[in-house]
Structures are given as structure tokens and as C-alpha cells.
């Protein structure tokens, strides 16, 4: 029933898919954002291999995974959230809160698995708080999640203060667990966190692109009212997406704990903007309704390998910041390419017309 009703809402989308599949010329079909990302990725990899002699070492792939894995894990639920036209800026703070919770409980003698479970639960509760405020009370997600960004990081600070866990007198984290954070999967150069990301990316991709739930997210992002009338439970969907985002961020917090084998309250400070940048560079529209998991995965690969290469080349983190920012700007300017150029020219002409002589 509801899927019948959903047809009008997704028609725009369906017809777009049809036309891109059948009618449009090949060059047009190839000129998708993802194709551009593949080209950029190849370019980055070639450039890096030529410039940095160590880039082609197998260990590069491993360190790429270690440095990028836990950030990439947060990019997946963020994609869903942005897809529906919302945003979650609290992810990095939730990562910090979850890691701090693990550290706090470990410090107080808890079993590590129980600590993990509580940390994940904290993620669900924090995500539910975002979800209730956004979906139930209709508050703007950008404002709400700036609030919870501060709140979650603040709670992390309350838990650990200036301590770094394990501190003097504490047990070390179980060795075999922290090995997961710093060792690769035996016989490969793939880090465990990267494997986890890849598995999750496949699941998220299937949900978004092949399941009714994913199509519903697209519909909500394109036209929330129409989606509502089509029988999609918009509020409920948004609520659960925020819960998912909280849970995954908490999970990323556990990953980062394993990787660093120590925790302080400010771990991952400021990462929320990196995650948003990755998602947007992956071609997900900030207005919702447009984007693919493939694009986000490619974006992770580009941003991560670029960062590896620049670090190997001793390029300062400041210049890396510039690169991140420029990528982000390109990601919004290029898709509007011709349109934007025409507008820019018009703008300049109008300005020139205002100036006498």
C-alpha cells in the first residue's frame, strides 16, 4: 500500500534514473560526479606515487586505513542524515564521549566488553536525544547538534577531566584488543578499521540504493511534504537515522580507543567538519535527496590518500587544510559548472555596468 502511494513522490527520481539509463548519450551518463571522483582518485594516486617514493610501499595502505577508518565509519550514517536534508554536527563529540566512557569505566575496574556495551548505549541515547529534538519537536538539526556537540564533549570532560586513561595505577587495555587497532589483518595490508568500514559501506550502499528504505530517504530529502503524503513516516525515519548516527559515532569512539590504546576527553576534537567535508565532497547534496555511497567511499579514498601523500611529502598540516577546503569548494562549484560560470560572468558584467566608464 505504502509503496503504491510512494510512487508519485519518487516519480521525479525514477524518471531521472530512467532517462540517465536509456535516453541520455553515453558521455552524459559518464559525466557523473562519481566518474569525476574516480579520475581525481587516479590522478592523486599517480601524482603521489611519482612524488613520494614511499607512497607505493605496502604499508601506506595500512596507515591509510588506520588514519582514515574511524572517520570514514562516521561518514556513512552522516550520508544518510544529510540525504534526508538534516545534518549531525555532534558526531565527533559523541566519538569523544564514547571513548571517554570506555576509559572511565575501565579506570573503575569494569570489564572491557561491558564498557564497550555501555559506550554504544550512550551513543544510542545521545542519538535519540538529537532525534527527539529534531524529529519530535521539529527543531533545526544544525542548531540542535551544535548544542549536543557542546553537551557531549562537555560530558566527556566531566567523565575524564584532565586524565588520560590508562593513567598511573590502571591496567593497560587488553593487548590483543589494542593489537586490532595497530595491526593489519594477517597476510594483508588492510587495517581492521578499514575492513569494518568496507563491510559497513556495502551494507549502507545496499540499504540506500537497493532497498525501499533508501528510496524513501531520497524522497524525504527531495520533498518532505510529498514523502509524508506518500505514506513515509518522515519523523520516525529521521529519529532513527539520528540514533544510527549516534550509535556509529560511539562505535568509532571504540575504534579510536583501540587504535590509540589510550583515551583523553578531547579525542577527535573538530572532526565533525572533516566528516561533513568528506560527505559533501562525495557528491551528497547539502539540501538532501542526492548522493551515493559510492561517491562517499571515493571521497574517503581521495581525502585519505591525499593526506597520506602530503604527510609523506612533509607538507604542513596547514597546507593540507587548504587542500581540504579547496576540495570542498570545488565539490560545490564544479557540478554547477556551466551555470555558475554564466552567473559569474553576468555578475561581473552587472558590476561593470554599475561603474561609470
Amino acid at each position, binding site marked *: 500500500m505504502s509503496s503504491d502511494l510512494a510512487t508519485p513522490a519518487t516519480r521525479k527520481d525514477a524518471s531521472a534514473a530512467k532517462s540517465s539509463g536509456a535516453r541520455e548519450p553515453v558521455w552524459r551518463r559518464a559525466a557523473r560526479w562519481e566518474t569525476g571522483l574516480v579520475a581525481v582518485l587516479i590522478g592523486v594516486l599517480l601524482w603521489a606515487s611519482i612524488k613520494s617514493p614511499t607512497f607505493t610501499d605496502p604499508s601506506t595502505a595500512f596507515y591509510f586505513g588506520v588514519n582514515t577508518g574511524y572517520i570514514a565509519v562516521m561518514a556513512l550514517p552522516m550520508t544518510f542524515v544529510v540525504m534526508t536534508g538534516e545534518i549531525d554536527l555532534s558526531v565527533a563529540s559523541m566519538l569523544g564521549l564514547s571513548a571517554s566512557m570506555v576509559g572511565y569505566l575501565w579506570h573503575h575496574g569494569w570489564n572491557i566488553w561491558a564498557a564497550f556495551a555501555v559506550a554504544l548505549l550512550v551513543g544510542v541515547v545521545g542519538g535519540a536525544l538529537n532525534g527527539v529534538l529534531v524529529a519530535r519537536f521539529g527543531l533545526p538539526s544544525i542548531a540542535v547538534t551544535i548544542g549536543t*556537540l557542546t553537551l557531549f564533549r562537555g560530558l566527556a570532560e566531566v567523565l575524564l577531566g584532565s586524565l588520560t586513561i590508562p593513567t598511573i595505577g590502571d591496567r593497560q587495555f587488553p593487548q590483543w584488543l589494542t593489537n586490532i587497532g595497530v595491526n593489519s589483518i594477517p597476510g594483508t595490508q588492510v587495517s581492521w578499521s578499514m575492513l569494518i568500514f568496507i563491510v559497513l559501506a556495502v551494507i549502507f550502499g545496499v540499504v540506500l540504493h537497493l532497498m525501499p528504505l533508501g528510496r524513501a530517504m531520497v524522497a524525504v530529502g527531495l520533498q518532505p511534504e510529498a514523502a509524508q503524503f506518500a505514506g513515509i513516516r518522515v519523523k520516525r525515519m529521521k529519529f532513527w537515522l539520528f540514533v544510527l548516527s549516534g550509535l556509529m559515532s560511539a562505535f568509532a569512539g571504540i575504534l579510536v580507543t583501540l587504535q590509540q590504546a589510550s583515551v583523553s576527553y578531547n579525542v577527535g576534537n573538530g572532526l565533525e567538519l572533516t566528516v561533513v567535508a568528506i560527505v559533501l565532497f562525495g557528491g551528497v547534496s547539502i539540501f538532501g535527496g542526492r548522493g551515493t555511497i559510492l561517491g562517499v567511499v571515493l571521497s574517503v579514498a581521495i581525502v585519505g590518500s591525499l593526506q597520506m601523500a602530503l604527510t609523506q611529502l612533509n607538507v604542513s598540516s596547514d597546507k593540507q587544510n587548504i587542500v581540504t577546503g579547496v576540495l570542498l569548494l570545488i565539490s560545490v562549484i564544479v557540478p554547477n559548472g556551466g551555470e555558475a560560470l554564466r552567473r559569474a560572468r553576468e555578475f561581473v558584467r552587472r558590476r561593470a555596468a554599475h561603474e561609470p566608464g
Partner: protein
Amino acid sequence: MSAVTVPKADGGVVLTLLRAREIGIALLIALVVLVTALHNSHFVDSNSVQQLLSGAALIALLGVGETLVIITRNVDLSVGSVLGLSAYVVGDLFKYHHIPVWSGFVIGTLVGVAAGTLNGFIVTALRVPSLVVTLGMLYVIRGIDGVIVNGDRIDPESIPNAFTAVGYRTLFGIPWLAIIVAVLVAVAGFAMRSFRASRDLYAIGSNPDAAALAGVPIQRRVFSAFLISGTLAGFAGALFLALHTQIDNSGGIGYELSVVAAVVVGGVAIFGGSGTVVGAALGALLLNTINQALVASRISAFWNQAIAGALLLAAIAFDRWLSLRVTKSLRSAEGAHREL
């Protein structure tokens, strides 16, 4: 007629008062100050009050520009980076080129003008969502800042005394910094009420399509809003340097979110169309007062951020509740009017 029935419909003298958001925030500030002062009389020492006002002044100044931008349904996340870059550039010129004191303020402001122009151009001429543009600019400008700083640090000895005086001098016990910002807020507040161009900003934020049909030059107005936001951020950078008397590459990191928080607490709707610069400035003062109050009370400093976050959420939720009540009361008043 209906204007008379509106307050009656929901018994709302209180509601009407609360709608004037500024009064509510001012009362809240007074309450926080009173309660904290009862616990710890040092809280109202002139020294700590001056410190509080100076700190709030910088956020309030950024908040003025941010308010203009948010009213048009945009956002400027680059203000913290612009402030940091401007502050360092001015400090660098003092240290290595011994520029005159007055030009420090001019150059700082010009850095902001350049950033604001670039933001405004990309957003309006290329029609790109401002959240993404200014997020990109946050990184780019912070990166440029870092490249210029290159591990250096400007120390108080390198900055002329006449410049830092702006940061520490007071008039009748009120820091110059706070007076400068208060004057700017008052001017901006007056302008936002009185000029056609500024009313256009509200029209754009309330309903862009209607504003376009009404002949509002949307792109030009939005461009101006970004230009003003950048300009004020640049000026704030010079003031930041005068206040802190030292600068490295970390000045103003994270300010963008504090500013947005202050503006939202100050009653500016994040989706545009309503709010005042005075409200935003009071929002900045309230958040800073609360922070200082937490320090002054013997609550562990570790709680500061958590409480600030909870208060921010409460403010947003309260705002929503209020606007729902107002809408309801307006509706029922309208209904009653129609029945007549």
C-alpha cells in the same frame, strides 16, 4: 482590531513580554549574575566583570555579522578563521614592519573585507550553498593563516602599547572594547530597524520567492550581508590581538560555533527571517556570563561545557515552544475575528 485581540486570545501579557526576546535574556543575565554573586562576591569585582565584558564583546561583534547572514537564510562558518588570520597579520606587521597603530585596525578590517567579498561572491554569483562555501573557507583561511604564521608567535613586546591599550583601558570601569562593540551593536540595531535595505534581509529570509517577486535585489543584499560579516570578523581580529596581546596560528579556532550558538540563543531563527542584533549580542553576553559564573561558583570547571551545551538546547527548545504558542494564539485570534 485583530491587533487588539491578539494578546487577549492567549491571556498573554507574559507571552508578549517573552516575545521581546531581549527582555527575557536580559532578565536571565541579571538572574545568573545575582545568584552567582550571592555565592561568590568576587564575581562582581570590577576586574572579573571587565574580563567578562571584553570576552563577550568579541563574540557579540562576530554575532552582529552572523545575525545579518543568518537572517537571509545563510550561515557564515568562516568567521573564526577570518578573525585568526586578521589578528595574526596585524601582529606580524607590528612585529616586522612597525606599522603605525591606527593602521593595525584598518589592515585587520581589510583582511575581513577580502574574506567577506570572496564568501559573498561565491555564494551569490555562483549560487552555492553558504554552509558548504564557508565551511570550505574555514579550512582554506585557517590553512593560509598557518602558512603565514609558519610556527611563529607574536609576543606582547612586539605590539605597540597604544594598540593593546584598546584591550585593557576602561572608561568609568567599562572596557573600551565593550564600549566599541556596544556602539557598533546599537548602530547596527538601529540600521536593521530603519533602512529599507536591512528590512530586505528579513524579507529574503522569510520568503525568498516572495522577496524576489517584490523586487528585492536578493543577490546584492546577501552579498552585502557576507561582506559585513567578513568585515566585522576582520575588525574583531584586530580587537582580539589588542585584548590577548599575543597570537599564533590558533586564534579564534572554534569561534564559529560559539557565535552561531550565541546568535541562536539570542533569538535569531536559524532558518532566517527573524531576530535582532541586540538579541544576538545579549545571547553572547549570556553565554559568557554563564561560563564565568560556572568558574566563579565552585562547580568544577570540567562541567562548563556540558552545562553550556544543555543551556543551548534549552534555549532552542524554549524558542520553539514560544513560537508555537504565539502561532496558536494568532490562529485562534484570527479564527475569532473571522467568526465575527
